Each structure stands twice: as structure tokens, then as C-alpha cells.
């Protein structure tokens, strides 16, 4: 680790769901770092702990049932896990911006666009209402909202999904945060709009040098946006690599499966997409060994009894798999 503080450094984060059916380790020892201007993609199937990781960073977990039980989230060198709620108020929206999956339902239906953007500005800056309005207009233009001046008076239901997502992005970057968390920001959008929003995020990130965590299950989006990729399975990191390494030479059988399950343009139409057999195991009934073992094509006896630890087979690469270690 370098001496100068990274925008975001997560060390051994553990988030547990305390439910009637028992404790579930939703995030089990996640570590990752994001440098300024870097995009780290968090990839995995639904329920693998991606979104709960993001909410843990923001300390916005639904409590009960979810609670951080261990680890550190260092924001510019400062661990924010032990901070009281009041201190978190000054961090959310100011030092960490967040973008959500469903843009339309993520905006308050009875408040105008202007009001919702002005609100975040007035919470974290010294701007007066008039100045905040001017700034809101600038922000809308910055995120490429067509006809921005008129959209300030609009309500969310009068905007398209892409426009709503631009409003949310404007709110997330309003206070120039050092970290931006995008939780499946394009999943609910049309493909053409997806490309626009991705391009916008990339541009904003490059201009401001933000550290970005990009959560998605879409490997096509990962290839387009990420510098580094963290693959999660059942609450744990199973592989980490640069985006090029990951697609060229995936090490973990789960990553191989994910890439195989992604359609590639130009492939034979008749060729059936490879799927990963079985389902993600429920978190309260994880197997004793590797969580992926029941679905793994390369499963060995050892995998059923022991959990593989993360190892570094090459510089900048991490993988948690006994089979991958041997090759």
C-alpha cells in the first residue's frame, strides 16, 4: 500500500443480515481499493452482495436486518465505519455520491427536478437558494440534459428514464465527491440511452478525477467502463484483475462461466449461450467448502471441505480457487 491515502480503501468488510432464519454473511471479508480516476467494477449475479457492499460503504444498510460487523471503509485515509450517523450526513452526497438502478423510482415523484438538486446543494454548501438554483441549472447542462432550463420545473414523471438518470447523476456529482458509487446505473435503461449514460459517467469521472465503483451484472458494460474488475460470489471476492486480463484469461471457473454466458456479436446464431448450471446458494445454507463448488465444472474433493483463500497467481491478479492455483 502506498503512503498517500487512496480515495477509497475497503479492508475486510463484513456485513451480516440478522434474520429469523439465522445470520447470513452477505458481504464476507471484501477488500478492494479504488484510486483517483479509476473505475472498479463489482460484478456478480443477483444476491452476491454487490449492492449490500455499496450500501455498506454509504452506511445506508436497512438496519434491521443488515449490519456491518467488521472491517474498515477508508475514505481518503479515514475509516468511516465507526463514525456516528451525524458525521455520515456530512459524507453522504458530499464525499461519496451514489447513483441508483431505477432512475424513475429513485426520484421523489412530488418534487420538481430543481428542488431535488437544490436540496443537496443547500445541505452541503454555503450557497443561498438563488445561487443553488443557478448551480442546479449548470449541473443539468453538465450532465447533458436537453433543454435544461425548462426541465428544472419538471416533475420526474414528465421525464424519460435517461433524463431521470441524468438528474440523479447531477445530484450525485453536485458537491464534487471524491468517490462515486454507481449501482447498476444503466440496467433499467434502453440500450441506446445506456451508451449515452455510460459515456457521460466516463467523461464526468475523467474531468473530476473521481474514484468510481461500478456495480453491474452486465459484462458488456464492464468491458466498456472499468479499469479493474472484482468478481463476487456469495458475498466473497472470488477474482480480481484488470479488465483486459480478466477477459483474456479468466482464472476462476465462475468468471469463465460469466463470460461464457455473455452473448458476443458475430457468434453463430445457432450456438447456444453457455449457462452456469444451478443457482447461487442461499446465504444461510452455504456449503462448507467453496460456495461455488456445487456448480463448478472443475470441482475437486478439496473444494467441498475447504474454503479457498485469495492467492496472487500473477502481479495485479487475485483468485480464490484451488483449481486455478494449480494451472
Amino acid at each position, binding site marked *: 500500500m502506498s503512503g498517500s491515502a487512496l480515495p477509497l480503501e475497503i479492508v475486510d468488510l463484513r456485513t451480516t443480515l440478522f434474520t429469523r432464519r439465522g445470520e447470513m454473511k452477505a458481504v464476507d471479508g471484501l477488500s478492494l481499493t479504488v484510486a483517483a480516476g479509476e473505475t472498479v467494477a463489482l460484478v456478480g449475479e443477483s444476491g452476491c452482495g454487490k449492492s449490500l457492499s455499496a450500501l455498506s460503504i454509504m452506511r*445506508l444498510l436497512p438496519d434491521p436486518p443488515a449490519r456491518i460487523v467488521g472491517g474498515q471503509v477508508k475514505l481518503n485515509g479515514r475509516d468511516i465505519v465507526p463514525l456516528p450517523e451525524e458525521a455520515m450526513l456530512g459524507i453522504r452526497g458530499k464525499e461519496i455520491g451514489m447513483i441508483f438502478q431505477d432512475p424513475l423510482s429513485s426520484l421523489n415523484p412530488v418534487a420538481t427536478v430543481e428542488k431535488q438538486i437544490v436540496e443537496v446543494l443547500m445541505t452541503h454548501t454555503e450557497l443561498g437558494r438563488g445561487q443553488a438554483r443557478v448551480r442546479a441549472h449548470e449541473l443539468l447542462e453538465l450532465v447533458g440534459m436537453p433543454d435544461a432550463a425548462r426541465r428544472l420545473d419538471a416533475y420526474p414523471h414528465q421525464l424519460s428514464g435517461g433524463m431521470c438518470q441524468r438528474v440523479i447523476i447531477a445530484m450525485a456529482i453536485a458537491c464534487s465527491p471524491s468517490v462515486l458509487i454507481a449501482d447498476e446505473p444503466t440496467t433499467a435503461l434502453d440500450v441506446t440511452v445506456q451508451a449515452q449514460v455510460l459515456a457521460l459517467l466516463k467523461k464526468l469521472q475523467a474531468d473530476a478525477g473521481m474514484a468510481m465503483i461500478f456495480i453491474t451484472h452486465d459484462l458488456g458494460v464492464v468491458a466498456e467502463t472499468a479499469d479493474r474488475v472484482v468478481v463476487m460470489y456469495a458475498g466473497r471476492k472470488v477474482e480480481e484483475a484488470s479488465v483486459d486480463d480478466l477477459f483474456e484469461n479468466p482464472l476462476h471457473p465462475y468468471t469463465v462461466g460469466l463470460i461464457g454466458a455473455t452473448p458476443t456479436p458475430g457468434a453463430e446464431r445457432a450456438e447456444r449461450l453457455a449457462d452456469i448450471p444451478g443457482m447461487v446458494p442461499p446465504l444461510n445454507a452455504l456449503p462448507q467448502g467453496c460456495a461455488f463448488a456445487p456448480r463448478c465444472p472443475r470441482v475437486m474433493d478439496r473444494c467441498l471441505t475447504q474454503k479457498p483463500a485469495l492467492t496472487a497467481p500473477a502481479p495485479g491478479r487475485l483468485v480464490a480457487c484451488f483449481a486455478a492455483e494449480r494451472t
Partner: protein
Amino acid sequence: MAGELVSPTPALRGSARRTAALRLLRRRLIQAVPLMLGVVIINFCLIQMAPGSFLELMTAENQVSDPTTIALLRKTYGLDDPVWMQLLKYIWALLHFDFGFSYRQNMPVIQAIWIHLPATVLLMVSSIALAISIGVAAGVVASMKVRTFWDSLVSVAAMFFYAAPSFWLGIMMIVLFSVKLGWLPVGGMMKIGGNGGVLDILHHLILPTLALGLFYAAIYTRVMRSSMLEVAQLDFVRTARAKGLSRNKVTIHHVLRNALLPVVTILGVQMGTVLAGSVVIESVFSWPGVGSLLFDSVSSRNYPVVLGIMVLGSLVVIAANIAVDLIYMWLDPRIEIR
């Protein structure tokens, strides 16, 4: 930047929303005409079917048994006409704001109602204001302290006031606060011989307002609590928290306004029952309002007054529902009421 595939409707500015509200108002007023006609016809027929007539009571009370006098009275009050003719005459008179004549008060029906109206309006407004303020506040508190002692306390209190009949509650409050403790007057609207000072009237208003309003407060509390809890689960609340707003700010600025919508809806539906409830409460507290007048008129078969109150009451309910639609439109910009 290229526009999105969907071309959205242009934002409705303030003036456009006002135009929409006026259009709604006009449509509702036009719809109210056949509605009122139906109300008049049905009420008229119901009263025709009811046993006894004011003439019987009037003649009995005045010990008139002379058939010629009775025949003369029947002719005077138009009771010899066929029912449909009486109805048409009544509707025709209504169109000229003539609600008929009340022999008992010896004045036009409209004047008799007018005299009693302020007391009832005062009671209804204060009861509804009480119900909304207590209901919304208690519902918000319960939802913020969900599954705690305070939540249970609010729920139990709401259940009690929901279940308690208002006349019983009124009598119990009289026993406690007037008879035992002597804090508040037993009934009436002002001290005997009083000149109707504001404080005196307010003093008399407390118990009837509580008796009538707490039932509705209980309903609004329950609705508000569940509505708050439901809205608090929605995505935009998480967005608001991600902006760094405190829990209280999120509750007030984002959850509350969205959660108010169902309360406003039931408020409109219940205007009629509040009016009906005031009949009972006015009798219990000798409150000199339209409810007392109605009760008295039913007992004395004074049908022109009964019918007049029904018609005016329906007008109030229709007006209240139009108001609710407008409030609804103001609260929720998504709504385009047809």
C-alpha cells in the same frame, strides 16, 4: 447531446397547472348537476314513503279535527297534488333557491337552516382540523418509532377511539370533565345569558369537538402510519438519504407529502359521515346546529326542513369532494383527474 428516444411532454408550469385545475373544477361542477337532481329525487321519495306527515302532527298538536280545516290545510300545503307533481314543484322551487316554509319555526326553511349553520360549520371544521392534526402527527410518530412502546401506545389509543361510539364517548366525557371535574360545560354553545364571546364559545366547543373528532383522528392515525411506513420503503427515500439529509428531513420533506395522499382521499369520502356524526354529537351536547335542527325536524315530521338539510348536506359533501380533488392535484403532480 442527442435526445432520448422518448420525447417527454413539456413540463407543466404553474399556469398550466392552474388551467388544469380550472378545467377539473368546471367538469366537476357540471357532473354535480345530475348528481344533485338524483339526491333530491331519492330523498323526496324516501320521505314520501316514511309514515306520518307533518300535517297529522300539526293538527294533533293543535287539536284540530275539523275536516274542512284539514282539507284547507292540505290544499294550502299542496298535499292534494299527485306525488310527481309535488316533486316537480319542489324541484322548480329549489331552482329559485326556495326550500319551502317551516311552519314550526314560522320562517322559510333556508332561513331556519341558515341560523343553525354557523354552529355546525364551526363544529365540523374544528373536528376535522383536530382529526387531521392529531391523526397525521400520531401516525408520523408511530411510524418513526415503529414497533416500540410509543407505536403500541398510539395503536391502542387509535383502536380505542375507533371502537368507542361517539355518543358514548361524549356522555363519558361530560361525566368526567363536566360533572366530576367541573372543568368544561355540559352542553350548549355559550353561557346562558352570555353574549357569545370567542373564549366562551371555544370553551363550549372543546368537548363536542373531541367527541366527534377523535374517531376520525383514530382512522387517520392508522392510515397515516401505514402510509408512512410504505413510502419509507420506496427508492427515492434511499436517494434522499444518500444525499446526506438527516432522518427527520427525509421524513418531513420526502416521506410525509407522499404519505398524505391516502389521508386526503378518505377525508373526502368521509365528509358525509362527519356531517351525520354531528347530528348525534349535537344532540348529546345540545349544540344548536343543523344536526339539532334535523333531529328536531325528524321528530316533528317537519319534512321541508329535513329535505332541505339533506339537499344542502349533499351540496356540502359534493363541494368537499371537489376541494379534495383539487388538493390531491396540488399534492401529487402525477395526477390528471378526469
